């Protein structure tokens, strides 16, 4: 929900190596069912999406800060890739 310039400054500060996207009009946050109409903000969440476009892992709320669930889902996807 941050603007692209705000994200750019942040990306430079912490030297991120992945795309930092701006959902300025909240469309994606709404599509993912994370938008709170009352507060005007979204919930924190982590989704792991497989190569087939299907969701492999969902973490919503404060637990989404902990990346261990996403790591596990990525490990499973990597193992799946090796076995293919």
């Amino acid at each position: 929900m941050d603007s692209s310039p705000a994200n750019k400054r942040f990306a430079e500060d912490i030297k991120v190596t992945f795309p930092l996207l701006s959902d300025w009009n909240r469309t994606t946050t709404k599509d993912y069912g994370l938008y709170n109409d009352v507060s005007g903000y979204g919930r924190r969440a982590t989704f792991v999406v497989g190569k087939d476009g299907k969701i492999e892992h969902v973490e919503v709320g404060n637990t989404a800060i902990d990346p261990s669930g996403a790591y596990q889902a990525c490990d499973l996807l990597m193992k799946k890739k090796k076995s293919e």
Partner: protein
Amino acid sequence: MMKLILFSLLMSVCAVVAFAQTPQAPQTKLKVGDLAPDFSLSDTTGNKVKLSDFRGKKNVVLAFYVLAFTGG
């Protein structure tokens, strides 16, 4: 005594009003196995990044990190 009762009543009303105004946390209906909704969003350099562009090529981790770093 009357003042105490009135004060208690007022506090109860305030508590009910505060509770009623607590924003309900949205619950995503998306679950494992669902197709992730596609999106096209701008990155920090203004380039559009589309989720479906990764299909068949890469796994993707989407982190919605609201109000965490940049104040918006």
